[in-house]
């Protein structure tokens, strides 16, 4: 009888697809750096052996650190081993050892719990240190605690060197250091328990074009290393224990996608022109300078949005120097050539800039961020403007101001930019004098004021993600209401129409840089509403190029004009879905309204 073998059921989990494509591989779990600790109340007679267990783990941890120190010393020199030296001293510190042993005795605690509790307490004490640099050392304590707990629970961090071929990396969250160590030839996909479109894993996945799904709750609890996992990065689905039928379905789907990728390469030189001869500009959104490879792979017509935030998050101090920024922007300008790149000034909150005395905000999304912060901490903004102006001497860069709600903000920013130019000129530093300045339209106030804003700027960039959130009053991250986030809402379409009309009237170009620009069904609406310039994640360009080449703009305009008269999202969706096929393209059947 084989009845003892547990027949596992197929399980489908939903997350956020952040890099499209199907991957089928074996799960490789990377542990959460913060770990989880179970509390156990021990009987008195077990306490002494528990203390011995702790001492043994602490000794093993010391041995591990010593090995690490030697390795780092040989590889990088003794100067780089100092943090590990500090870790070793912490492990040898009798104060810590005694406190933990005491905790076990007094609380009848298991060793893991004792280590966690005592180190947490130490961390709290550290949290009160005023000097930020010294306070940061709390992370070393966490690291040391983590190491002991790992040994205690027998869950040693599996070295990424053991990574087998065809692995799908599964983790609660991936640290940048971990992703940097991964061998991309062995990784087929990523799944993480937390994160969103711009989390580190998402960006890395897109830059190497590996399917990824993030925000899959409790994923590390549900899957074990070695198990077969299917991920669909387009749908945001993860499938555990796939049935033979599912496996077959996705194997074929993967085959189809590989074939498609070959077509994409063949088609990359084809111009994005509609059947009735309208050229549509397809540009790339870039987050990391490293992503520029994908930009070339998909033959984008320039960078429509370069998010400068990552320069800030990568800088240790939260603020990259003028030179660091200059080098990055100059590289960008050189890579994109005549097609040009739009550099959006930092869209960050004060916490990210590590500003002294900046208090956490209750609602940072509508708090002191982006242009508001730029105008309130002028020196930081000036540094960025200087770097962009200097880099623009080497290629076609434009400046884009995020989160504009008021014409006055544009005027103030322009004054600062003019002042920085004067300064550069007086210093005799090479820079671009007549740089174009654009305004992000991403809040309802900017939509209402579009004409006035157009008078003050050279171009618009329509950020549909934020606009939909604030227009519909929906927090996408809140699962109770996230389904109300709907690009097909008539209010969204009317707002887009207003912006498109205002820009046409004032004769300035508009680029769409939100996710709508990468969704085929929504792109038809955007084109129908008068937009001709779309910027998207580079991987979406082949599908949108094909779409553009397969429709008549006149049909898209008829469709858009009709749905503008509809009164509910459901009606819009229904109409678009039923008319997709009428537009006469077999490709559209695959596009579907989403």
């Amino acid at each position, binding site marked *: 009888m084989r009845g003892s073998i547990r027949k596992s059921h197929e399980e489908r989990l939903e997350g956020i697809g952040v890099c499209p494509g199907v991957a089928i591989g074996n799960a490789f779990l990377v542990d959460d750096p913060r770990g989880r600790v179970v509390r156990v109340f021990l009987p008195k007679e077990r306490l002494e052996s528990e203390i011995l267990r702790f001492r043994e783990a602490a000794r093993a941890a010391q041995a591990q650190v010593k090995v690490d120190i030697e390795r780092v010393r040989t590889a990088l020199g003794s100067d780089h081993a100092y943090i590990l030296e500090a870790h070793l001293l*912490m492990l040898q510190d009798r104060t810590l050892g005694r406190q933990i042993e005491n905790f076990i005795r007094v609380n009848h605690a298991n060793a893991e719990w004792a280590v966690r509790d005592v180190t947490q307490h130490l961390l709290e004490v550290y949290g009160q240190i005023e000097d930020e640099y*010294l306070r940061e050392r709390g992370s070393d304590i966490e690291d040391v605690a983590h190491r002991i707990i790992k040994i205690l629970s027998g869950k040693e961090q599996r070295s990424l060197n053991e990574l087998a071929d065809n692995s799908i990396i599964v983790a609660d969250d991936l640290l940048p250091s971990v992703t940097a160590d991964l061998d991309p030839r062995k990784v087929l996909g990523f799944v993480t328990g937390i994160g969103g479109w711009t989390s580190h894993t998402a960006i890395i996945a897109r830059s190497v074009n590996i399917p990824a799904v993030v925000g899959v709750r409790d994923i590390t609890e549900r899957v074990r290393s070695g198990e077969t996992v299917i991920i669909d990065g387009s749908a945001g689905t993860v499938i555990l224990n796939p049935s033979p039928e599912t496996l077959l379905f996705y194997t074929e789907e993967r085959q189809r996608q590989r074939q498609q990728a070959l077509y994409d390469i063949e088609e990359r030189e084809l111009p994005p022109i509609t059947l009735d001869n309208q050229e549509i500009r397809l540009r790339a959104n870039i987050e990391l300078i490293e992503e520029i490879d994908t930009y070339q792979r998909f033959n984008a017509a320039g960078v429509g949005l370069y998010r400068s935030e990552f320069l800030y998050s990568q800088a240790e101090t939260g603020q990259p120097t003028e030179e660091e920024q200059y080098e990055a922007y100059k590289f960008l300008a050189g890579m994109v050539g005549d097609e040009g790149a739009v550099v959006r000034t930092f869209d960050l909150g004060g916490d990210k800039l590590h500003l002294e005395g900046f208090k956490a905000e209750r609602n940072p999304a509508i708090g002191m961020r982006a242009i508001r912060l730029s105008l309130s901490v002028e020196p930081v903004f000036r540094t960025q403007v200087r770097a962009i102006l200097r880099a623009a001497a080497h290629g076609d860069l434009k400046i884009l101001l995020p989160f504009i709600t008021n014409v006055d903000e544009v005027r103030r920013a322009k004054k600062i930019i003019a002042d920085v130019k004067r300064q550069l000129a007086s210093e005799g530093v090479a820079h671009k004098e007549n740089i174009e300045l654009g305004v992000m339209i991403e809040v309802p106030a900017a939509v209402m004021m579009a004409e006035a804003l157009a008078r003050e700027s050279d171009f618009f960039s329509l950020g549909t993600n934020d606009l939909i959130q604030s227009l519909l009053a929906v927090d996408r991250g809140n699962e109770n209401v996230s389904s109300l986030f709907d690009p097909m809402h008539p209010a969204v379409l009317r707002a887009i129409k207003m912006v498109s009309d205002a820009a046409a009237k004032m004769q300035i170009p508009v680029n769409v840089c939100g996710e709508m620009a990468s969704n085929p069904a929504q792109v038809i609406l955007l084109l129908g509403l008068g937009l001709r310039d779309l910027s998207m994640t580079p991987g979406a360009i082949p599908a949108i190029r094909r779409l553009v080449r397969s429709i008549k703009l006149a049909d898209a305009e008829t469709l858009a004009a009709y749905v503008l008269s509809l009164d509910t999202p459901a009606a819009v969706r229904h109409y678009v879905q039923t008319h997709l096929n009428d537009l006469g393209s077999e490709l559209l059947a695959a596009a579907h309204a989403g």
Partner: protein
Amino acid sequence: MQQRTVTITNRLGLHARAAAKLVKLAASYRKSRVTLARSDASHQTADAKSIFSVLLLAATQNTLIEITVEGPDEDLAMEALCRLIADKFGEE
């Protein structure tokens, strides 16, 4: 018993690397007791052989620290510790 007051002059203060160096040095004088104390109102003290204790002093640049050494090799120990601090922990 030896007692001396010194100023922490390196830019980053008693951070992990500096503290590690100081603790290792203090610990090498096995027979002596080495304590540090902030020469301010708090008068917070630390066992110089415990890295946690030293880090918790949170001694930033320009903090005054009173070093106390007690034991058979106290002269040597005091001399070495003061040199390390005056040397900015070999950092700058």
